[in-house]
């Protein structure tokens, strides 16, 4: 067996903090052969990022690394800054999570790439820009010469990540380290970047270390997988072994917690028969934000929600899914009258909310609650958990008094799985998952009829997310809640929702019962979303035929005329530009596409062959 490209033995990372040393990584061993892809999987705090930062000498000032990391015959941990600089960016390249903040906003793409080429290959300006343009072309960026003159803010998120990858590949490194490279991206763009990494690996023979919290992301790419937890390696093995025959209990728990698109559908809980029509109904709902665009005085309206009809029955869970900028969060806020509605109506139990004056709306709020994405940011850091959860009671049931409120809070905390003993603590003393439980307790304390969950589990680790989802399902059944569950992750939506609404650029593309949507998606966008979502199973991932969506979501400031999806739609015909397609019924689904039948016919022919 040849010597590995990278061989790490006994890597430990320690941070000296005011509260004593924190051991982020404890005795990590790993080896990576040339051209091999290793997936490093772990939840937050597992030390996966710190381990690779330590390899490159990029730890924060109070961090210390020990152990050995042999790379091409040198111990990375023993190198001084100058020697390290000859390896970094040249032999080992690194791609970071957020392509917006990881590129210098003040320098053009060409300058940033040029600096790398000047440092490692001594190239002059002209030669550097030729090389850079060629590499941009290789990572699939059209019109590279023009892009070189542009600045990061002029590029979309996916483009920026391509630029990051291109600038790393400039010096043909033997090892590419990618730390959560697709976490900040939309699912269709994530699919593009993963496909790009697969392609580049073939082309340049680069070894890849892919660090992620998302098992599905590594499933299709990694030869071997290492699972980390609390600074230690829990399991290391081939992708097949780790996914199909995990030995470590933590790995098994992690795999079980990942919601799968291809798994058995959770039995949809029966809908409480509706007594008097829908609980919530929206008709032609529009929300526009005036924005000042570059230049002066030209005010334009950004149509965040452009005409949405929606109905939600009592006890029903409606999932709303779409990529960033599709208006799903704005829709949730508009339904609760948290943002001004430009046109259309929202009625709750038959009462029209949109024209209701503030004072008349306030009492209704006890039935309409919301849980937001960032648990820590949505809790007042200066209030105790008891006060946070009791606050709605003080508004709506002041007669009960403080002692009565405390009793209610204790019951509610227990219900969401928190120990009432801790009610006098402050939010920062809790973990992210616990904070989200507090937010849920606050939303539920007034026994609301409807709770809007706006990406309520997106910021949470996989295992915590599974717990919170379970909690929501359980509470829904016990309390007969209606949920509007907004998210970008199809697999999560699928776990919980009875009906699912797919949105794109402020419009509804498809609404269907969950079972139907996931088994027979009809709208081309729904199909693309499902195709782009990775599955945590290497066998499935490798066997998939990839027909990813090209490009990215257009700016909501200038949506395409007619069907908003047609610019990325593989089935678009000229007629799609003529008019905005209305929702029409196909089976149990309502679909906004004039090509539904044609696409269906095409597919039956294809599958018949």
């Amino acid at each position, binding site marked *: 067996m040849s010597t590995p490209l990278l061989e790490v033995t006994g890597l430990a990372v320690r941070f000296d903090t005011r509260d004593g040393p924190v051991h982020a990584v404890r005795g990590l061993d790993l080896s990576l052969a040339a051209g091999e892809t290793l997936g490093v999987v772990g939840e937050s705090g597992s030390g996966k990022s710190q381990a690779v930062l330590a390899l490159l000498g990029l730890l924060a000032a109070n961090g210390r690394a020990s152990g050995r990391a042999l790379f091409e015959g040198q111990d990375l941990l023993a190198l001084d800054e100058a020697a390290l600089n000859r*390896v*970094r960016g040249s032999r080992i390249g690194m791609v970071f999570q957020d392509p917006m903040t990881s590129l*210098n906003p003040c320098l053009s793409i060409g300058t940033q790439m040029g600096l790398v080429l000047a440092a490692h290959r001594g190239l002059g300006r002209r030669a550097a820009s030729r090389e850079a343009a060629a590499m941009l072309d290789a990572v699939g960026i059209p019109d590279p010469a023009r892009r070189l003159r542009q600045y990061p803010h002029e590029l979309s998120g996916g483009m920026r990540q391509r630029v990051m990858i291109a600038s790393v590949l400039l010096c043909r490194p033997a090892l590419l380290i990618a730390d959560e490279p697709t976490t900040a991206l939309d699912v269709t763009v994530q699919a593009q970047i993963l496909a790009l990494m697969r392609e580049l690996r073939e082309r340049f023979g680069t070894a890849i270390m892919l660090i992620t919290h998302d098992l599905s992301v590594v499933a299709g790419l990694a030869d071997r997988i290492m699972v980390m937890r609390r600074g230690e390696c829990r399991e290391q093995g081939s992708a097949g072994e780790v996914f199909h025959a995990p030995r470590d209990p933590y790995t098994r728990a992690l795999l079980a917690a990942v919601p799968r698109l291809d798994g058995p559908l959770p039995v949809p809980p029966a809908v409480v028969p509706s007594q008097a029509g829908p609980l919530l109904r929206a008709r032609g709902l529009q929300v526009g934000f005036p924005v000042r665009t570059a230049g002066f005085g030209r005010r334009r309206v950004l149509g965040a929600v452009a005409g949405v009809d929606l109905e939600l029955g009592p006890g029903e869970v409606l999932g709303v899914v779409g990529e960033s900028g599709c208006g799903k969060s704005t829709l949730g806020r508009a339904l609760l009258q948290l943002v001004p509605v430009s046109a259309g109506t929202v009625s709750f139990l038959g009462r029209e909310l949109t024209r209701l004056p503030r004072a008349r709306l306030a009492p209704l709020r006890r039935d309409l609650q919301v849980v937001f994405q960032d648990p820590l940011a949505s809790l007042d850091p200066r209030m105790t958990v008891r006060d946070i959860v009791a606050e709605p009671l003080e508004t709506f049931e002041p007669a009960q008094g403080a002692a009565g409120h405390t009793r209610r809070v204790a019951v509610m905390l227990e219900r969401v799985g928190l120990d009432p003993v801790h009610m006098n603590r402050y939010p920062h003393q809790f973990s992210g998952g616990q904070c989200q439980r507090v937010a849920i307790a606050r939303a539920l304390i007034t026994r609301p009829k409807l709770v809007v969950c706006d990406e309520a589990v997106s910021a949470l680790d996989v295992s915590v997310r599974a717990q919170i989802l379970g909690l929501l399902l359980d509470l829904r059944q016990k309390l007969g809640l209606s949920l509007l569950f907004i998210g970008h992750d199809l697999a999560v939506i699928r776990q919980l929702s009875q009906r699912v609404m797919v949105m794109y650029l402020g419009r509804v593309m498809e609404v269907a019962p969950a079972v139907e949507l996931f088994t027979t998606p009809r709208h081309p966008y729904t199909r693309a979303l499902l195709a782009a979502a990775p599955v945590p199973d290497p066998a499935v991932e490798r066997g998939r035929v990839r027909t990813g969506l090209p490009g990215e979501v257009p700016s909501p400031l200038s949506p395409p005329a007619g069907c908003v999806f047609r610019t990325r739609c593989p089935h678009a015909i000229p007629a799609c530009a003529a008019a905005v397609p209305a929702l029409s019924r196909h089976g149990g689904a309502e679909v906004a596409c004039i090509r539904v039948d044609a696409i269906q016919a095409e597919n039956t022919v294809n599958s018949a062959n």
Partner: protein
Amino acid sequence: MLRFTLQRLLTGIPTLLVLVAGAFFLMRAAPGGPFDRERDLPPEIEANLRRAYHLDEPLLQQFLHYLGNLLRGDFGPSLQYRDFSVSELIRAGFPVSLHIGALAMLLALLIGVAAGTWAALRQNSAGDHVVMAAAMTGISIPNFVMAPLLVLLVAVGLGWLPAGGYGGGAWRHLVLPVTTLALPQVAYLARLSRASMIEVLASPFIRTARAQGLGLGTILLRHALRPALLPVVSYLGPATAAVITGSVVIEQIFGLPGIGRFFITGALNRDYTLVMGVVVFYGVLILLCNFLVDLVYGFLDPRTRQPG
């Protein structure tokens, strides 16, 4: 770009108008007048003088009259130095003020940013604390205290440099006034650039640059300096104003023939037109400097650039 420039210049007009009106009426609200002397002038002569300079008209009419002249670029005659117009006095004094002010700003920028960056690289070390303590002292000592102290020490005590006078712009005469004028700005800019440099050095794109194997020099000069300069640049507008007001005091103390001196003597003598002239002139100057700052800002930060 043209549109942006025009817009910026146009928004300066109301600001100037408020400035002119404020200065005009404040000046008139102060007791006394331009022709008060220890020995009273005969009433007829004073009345004639007042008539000649339109001082006998109602205040509002005088104001409109002044505005009208201003629009034609006429600052009027000085009430004190009767052989000169205000424009002539400004033309004579401005080169001296500009010389000292520009040198002070340049010095402040170079030393301030360098010291701030140096301290940022050694965050919380002894050197950092020394620089920041020195900066704090520099900010808290007013220039009318610093100037005599420096004169006493360097000029009178050590006899190295002249204590005052312009000396036709010879460097020996410039060192003390420029230093005094620059010191608080050096201090402020050092603190400002230290803070922004620390923030920039902690940002993800610097980590990217380090991961790309770039040397410290390249990272500092090519990656970090531009974004770190942004808050510094936006302070340059107020800094110009501070240097200008500072120069009024400094010129008086060092006996320099700049506009600042005219401003003080003008104010003491109720030389209405001279004070107004200096106020308007400096007002326009500060507005122009702020406009320049915006342009530089756009150059440094492409996100704020106006397309087209």
